[in-house]
């Protein structure tokens, strides 16, 4: 292996750091109509009347659209494979507005000034309805958020709009009630029941949501968008606007971060609509405030968890009940719920009983959607905090409790089969699982044993270590499909065409490395073009930690075919049989005959056996092999202020073969910081009237450079037989452990258990002092 397991610099790195115009807004035609959206100031209201006549009079205004002007067709903007496991409960514009920020009207004008002016002149008469702002009171509330008859779900997802339920799910292995009952009576058994909460984290990708559209010379609609899912965008735009798929092209340029926030459609439907109506180019770039108030957040969740174990630490049962808040629309409602179980529970595969149930409710708040971790981070915080609490209760070292119960290589879990994403999963044996090794290694790296045995106090500051483990997946088994095309050029280089979507992750580079490794050439000779629905083959998109594993497998298969074609053509030229051909990356040989790849390619183009060599392949993951992580966080808690500082953060992972160790490492570091942001800082606050208060970067705080602890990332030797060159995924696994590792460390330092994220100084202070007087 010389092209993989190699820290090659990202193919687009230089262009990005030298500020070349590569992002959507940089590329938009200068004469594009500027789109602005009038958004609802009310959490729940019906538009009684809307008058745009004054707005239309503003000089430079081209178009104003309200719900009366757009097709009333329900959709889901989720950006998932079809049929989606999310309810079709959203309209481009609707008579009802369901949260502060919901779209009321669309203005397109010559420039931003005219568009802003027009927004002010739209007169809306609202009938204000009673909003549902507390998700614990949403179910069966007298206010029904989706009373419309048109909304529906593609298949059974437990959708009950009359009860404000967007999705629901339940599963059980063994008889959990009976096990709980037995445990309660058994003096040799310990049972803990706890309630936890997680918050609606914001993605805060640097580039806001942006898209533009224009009509090409054939009258087709071209949409350029900062999207993670160009093919889903094409399909959904086609469906809602009744434009044939063949008349739409979607292109993704470079993206300044997505983290799941750009899996969904947030502006594309609108730019498409404006351009289709006016036949003029148009663009929509969200303001930061709009990104906060009117895109997606992570699903806030409430968990009730019960764990039962024997006194010797043998885990007997896990029972989890979830209430999740999807906000105004049900995108990703079911799947994030299920992932909270499916990507955590298999960690402890030896239990006698496991149950997972939950409901996802609508509220009149910013909709929730996909976000790195996707339910797993929420579930992991709860399971791994509860395991720590159980260890405490049992008087067992939390590490030993894990070692006694975790899943190991060659084992399976019934959860894999029962819980997929939105439907049944697949049976799977974990072929690569170095979790036990990861645990042992992180214990050693962090000095866990020595440090846990003595508590370190320095004035008002106390240190503590906390431990957590995690798993994730690699794509969605049997659903996510990726494909790749390789084309030989006359200089012996290759074009690699992939639908896969590099959103800053470096996947273009990684896929080129995989192709190069299989072909035996240098990564420099692979020219990648990705994410253009006209020119690149299909890919579901960049989500669910799928690209390296799913798209990478497709690339590898295509490269294999290409190499076979090359050898066949060389054999013809050299008059030998293909299996006599040897190949060293430059020259094809058979005995004393030889031809360089460049000569072969030139001949194929111009003189002999003329043809274009093209190879393609598709791949659907029959399984979704989990990567694993074991993490120890060392924190310092200031007992006088409640401030928590993460000093050191050790994480050891099994991601199979890291195709590009440097890119893999920065994925883990970035995920760690996002996880720490959710753990400690990223507080989401609403006003009593349902307005998001934390709607800019002064109010909503993500960690700064100075908040980065000493992070140690280590990858274990591991090889996933079903992955390309042994690779699994790395994109999400790093975000899962920070919340529990830090919460457990705080407990170990000062003996207070915070069960509600984020763990702000106020909560720690209040817990330490037994409350604050108000």
């Amino acid at each position: 292996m010389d092209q993989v397991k190699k820290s090659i610099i990202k193919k687009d790195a230089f262009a990005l750091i030298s500020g070349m115009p590569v992002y959507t807004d940089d590329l938009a035609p200068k004469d594009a109509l500027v789109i602005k959206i009038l958004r609802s100031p009310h959490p729940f209201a019906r538009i009684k009347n809307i008058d745009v006549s004054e707005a239309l009079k503003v000089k430079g205004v081209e178009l104003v659209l309200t719900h009366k002007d757009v097709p009333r067709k329900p959709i889901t903007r989720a950006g998932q494979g079809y049929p989606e496991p999310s309810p079709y409960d959203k309209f481009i514009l609707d008579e009802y507005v369901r949260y502060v920020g919901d779209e009321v009207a669309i203005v397109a004008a010559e420039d931003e000034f005219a568009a802003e002016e027009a927004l002010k002149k739209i007169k809306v008469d609202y009938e204000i309805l009673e909003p549902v702002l507390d998700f614990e009171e949403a179910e069966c509330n007298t206010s029904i958020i989706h009373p419309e008859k048109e909304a529906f779900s593609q298949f059974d997802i437990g959708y009950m709009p009359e009860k404000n339920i967007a999705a629901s799910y339940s599963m059980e292995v063994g008889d959990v009630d009976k096990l709980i009952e037995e445990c309660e009576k058994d003096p040799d058994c310990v049972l803990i029941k706890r309630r936890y909460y997680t918050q609606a984290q914001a993605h805060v990708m640097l580039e806001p949501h942006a898209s533009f559209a224009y009509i090409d010379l054939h009258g087709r609609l071209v949409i350029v968008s900062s999207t993670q899912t160009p093919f889903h965008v094409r399909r959904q735009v086609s469906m809602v606007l009744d434009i044939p798929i063949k008349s739409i092209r979607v292109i993704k340029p470079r993206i300044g971060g997505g983290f799941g926030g750009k899996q969904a459609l947030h502006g594309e439907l609108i730019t498409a609509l404006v351009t289709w109506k006016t036949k003029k180019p148009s663009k929509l770039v969200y303001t930061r405030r709009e990104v906060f108030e009117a895109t997606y957040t992570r699903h806030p969740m409430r968990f009730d968890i019960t764990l039962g174990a024997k006194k010797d630490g043998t885990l007997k049962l896990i029972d989890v009940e979830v209430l999740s808040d999807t906000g105004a629309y049900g995108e990703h409602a079911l799947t994030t719920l299920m992932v909270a179980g499916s990507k955590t529970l298999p960690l402890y595969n030896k239990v006698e009983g496991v149950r997972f149930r939950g409901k996802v409710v609508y509220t009149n708040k910013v909709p929730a959607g996909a976000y790195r971790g996707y339910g797993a981070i929420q579930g992991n915080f709860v399971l791994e905090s509860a395991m720590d609490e159980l260890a405490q209760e049992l008087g067992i070292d939390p590490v030993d409790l894990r070692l006694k119960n975790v899943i190991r290589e060659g084992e399976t879990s019934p959860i894999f089969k029962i819980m997929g994403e939105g439907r049944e999963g697949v049976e799977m044996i974990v072929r690569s699982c170095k979790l036990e090794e990861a645990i042992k290694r992180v214990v050693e790296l962090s000095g866990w044993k020595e440090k846990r045995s003595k508590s370190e106090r320095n004035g008002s500051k106390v240190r503590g270590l906390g431990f957590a483990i995690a798993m994730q997946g690699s794509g969605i088994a049997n659903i996510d499909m990726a494909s790749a095309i390789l084309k030989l050029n006359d200089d012996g280089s290759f074009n690699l065409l992939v639908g896969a979507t590099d959103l800053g992750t470096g996947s273009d580079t990684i896929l080129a490395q995989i192709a190069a490794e299989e072909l035996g050439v240098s990564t420099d000779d692979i020219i990648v073009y990705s994410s253009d629905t006209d020119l690149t083959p299909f890919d579901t998109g960049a989500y669910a930690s799928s690209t390296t594993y799913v798209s990478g497998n497709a690339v590898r298969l295509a490269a294999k075919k290409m190499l076979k074609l090359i050898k066949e053509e060389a054999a013809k030229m050299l008059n030998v049989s293909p299996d006599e051909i040897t190949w060293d990356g430059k020259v094809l040989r058979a005995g004393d005959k030889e031809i360089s790849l460049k000569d072969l390619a030139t001949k194929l183009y111009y003189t002999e056996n003329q043809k274009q060599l093209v190879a393609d392949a598709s791949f659907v993951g029959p399984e979704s092999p989990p990567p694993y992580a074991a993490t120890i966080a060392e924190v310092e808690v200031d007992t006088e202020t409640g401030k928590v500082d993460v000093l050191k953060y050790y994480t050891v992972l099994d991601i199979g073969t890291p195709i590009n160790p440097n890119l893999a490492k920065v994925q883990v570091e970035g995920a760690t910081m996002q996880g720490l942001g959710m753990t400690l800082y990223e507080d989401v606050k609403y006003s009593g009237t349902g307005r998001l208060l934390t709607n800019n970067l002064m109010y909503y705080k993500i960690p700064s450079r100075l908040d980065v602890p000493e992070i140690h990332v280590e990858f274990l030797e591991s090889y996933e037989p079903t992955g390309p060159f042994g690779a699994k995924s790395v994109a999400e696994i790093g975000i899962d452990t920070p919340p529990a590792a830090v919460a457990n460390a705080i407990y170990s330092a000062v003996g207070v258990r915070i069960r509600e994220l984020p763990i702000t100084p106020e909560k720690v202070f209040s817990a330490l002092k037994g409350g604050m007087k108000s």
Partner: protein
Amino acid sequence: MIPFRFSYHKPSSLSEAFEILSEDGAVPMLGGTDLVVKMRAKRVTPKVVVDLKFIDELHNVSFSEDEGLVIGAAVTMNELIEDFAVVKERFPVFYQAIKKVGAYQTRNRATVAGNIANSSPAADSVPPLLTYNAKVKVVSADGERLVELKDFFTGPGRNVLKPGEIIHSIIVPYESPSIGMYYKISRIKAVDLSTIGVALTIIDPDGKRDIRVALASVAPTPVRAFKAEDYIRDKELSASSVERFAELVQESTSPITDARGSKEYRWEMAKVLPKRILRELGLFEGVA
């Protein structure tokens, strides 16, 4: 971008500035780190922006024991603390507070005058300046006046400046050597406003030992805790006197809940931090 039209001027003299500032909807600007942010968010929508950075006179900094430190309005925070060692040597608490404003990049543009003129209760440079009895020199086409900083603020974002008046410079009298600390609690370590900021300055620590305290983000304006100062003057720093002192500091505040923190937490910290600073200065042993 800034979603409305306005004109931008950069006068090179005060008289020119006064003339443009007399236009309808004109506002002055220095670093723009408050103003431009607010304009982008449409929280202020001036018709005319008058950039004062190009007026030489506003870039002066001088120090003498008699006249004190005089800081021209257009001097950036980084210039002030990097080019004038006197700030760190003679006004250490002020120096510490400036270093806690935003991030380095912010301080490349931000000015102390802008921090004062913006009149946010969270202005970090203000509490130490209050403890040093700073004054604000205000000028207009009609002349000039000197305002005590403690009398400058009238509410969140509000102050005594009349239309046409601008801050010319800040004068920080020098009394004697001082020690102290600016303790800022913010959610993250950089680029964050204070949840609470406490400046505790001890003027003439080895002589008359005058302990002064002022706070940010705990009241509609930055506040100085005169009652607490009066109480502790000439008293020995014992557990009980420090406790009472801290309580009086706390009582000088009237915090509210906002996106950065709750009123309860601010209230608690208003008592914890003065004690803690005294302890960290080595003047008192005990828990805060």
